[in-house]
């Protein structure tokens, strides 16, 4: 049998439950905010459902739509502090953007140029700042020689760079090496054309 006391206790409990959970749900809408990107113009995001569609183009521009699936609201610029408060969790988990490097080689060899050798220390620093890091090393050649030989040369170049980085103390969690041979020229040339800028390894540190 329920006493007056236990009814009172249940009411208090219910009230507390509502007080804790309601502010979290009531009035909270789905929200999409376009963020600024360093050194880039913002892209675009189109938010659509059966009730309508909105395009966000400016940094801090936001649209909301109800939990019931109402139409996305006309975009408004949100206060940066408010955005940073709401999204503190994912913002604190955002990793550094990938770092990209191009290393160049002497003709028909897998010997790095002196300028590129000097970049290796910077790449190791980039790996250390991103641990656990993924290192992607893709070799490329110019169009001198056959595609098959150039595929192999690209692979050798990628291997040389990976070995150098490891010997200098790099410890990436994941290493991916590969070759595009002469199939992915940075500078378009005809066949059998020496081009120093095509004799390269692309290094990405994620």
């Amino acid at each position, binding site marked *: 049998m329920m006493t007056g006391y236990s009814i009172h206790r249940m009411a208090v409990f219910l009230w507390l439950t509502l007080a804790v959970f309601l502010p979290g*749900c009531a009035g*909270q*809408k*789905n*929200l*999409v*905010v*376009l*963020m*600024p*990107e360093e050194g*880039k113009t*913002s*892209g*675009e*995001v*189109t*938010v*659509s*459902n059966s009730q309508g569609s909105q395009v*966000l183009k400016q940094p801090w521009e936001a649209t909301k*739509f*109800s*939990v*019931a*699936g109402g139409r*996305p609201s006309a975009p408004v610029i949100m206060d940066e502090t408010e*955005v940073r408060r*709401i*999204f*503190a*969790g*994912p*913002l*604190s*988990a*955002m*990793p550094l*953007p*990938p770092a990209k490097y191009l290393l160049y080689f002497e003709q028909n060899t897998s010997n790095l140029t002196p300028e590129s050798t000097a970049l290796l220390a910077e790449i190791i620093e980039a790996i250390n700042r*991103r*641990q*656990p890091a*993924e290192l992607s090393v893709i070799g490329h050649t110019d169009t001198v020689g056959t595609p098959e030989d150039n595929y192999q040369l690209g692979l050798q170049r990628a291997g040389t760079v990976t070995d150098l980085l490891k010997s200098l103390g790099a410890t990436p*969690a*994941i290493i991916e090496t590969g070759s595009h041979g002469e*199939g992915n020229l940075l500078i378009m040339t005809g066949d059998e054309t020496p081009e120093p800028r095509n004799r390269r390894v692309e290094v*990405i540190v*994620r």
Partner: protein
Amino acid sequence: MRIRLMVICSLLTATASAYSAEEPRPIGLIKVATGDAVILRTSQRIIAKPGYQIYQKDTLSTGPTGAISVILRDDTVLALGSSSEIHIDRFAFEPSSQDLGMVLRVTRGIIGYRSGRIAKLAPDAVRIETPKATMGIRGTYLMMRIVP
């Protein structure tokens, strides 16, 4: 000509089947994982740790204290705050064969998305689905709050 085409086709088939016979290729790396953060893979529930690799069809999920971020092979970044969940329904990044596309499905939470090269090379092939709206992407960094 026809014979040559057939040879190319059979070569392509051979490559494709060789690929699927191998272990599925990882599509990205966990960069940050704190608190209650898991990877749901088929029927497995894996405690997420920095350095773990993830695969197409994985679901990333956090509890009330969790956060997790991943960087995918095309440089896309996903960052989840607490009580969040995202399904990587499709991830294709094979520029040489023009196979590019990404479909992400967010079911709840506060999530950051920074686009990578798939969105640059094939913007129409990138989509983020949520219960009440779909997002199309053009080279974008965005934050979303999705209320279940």
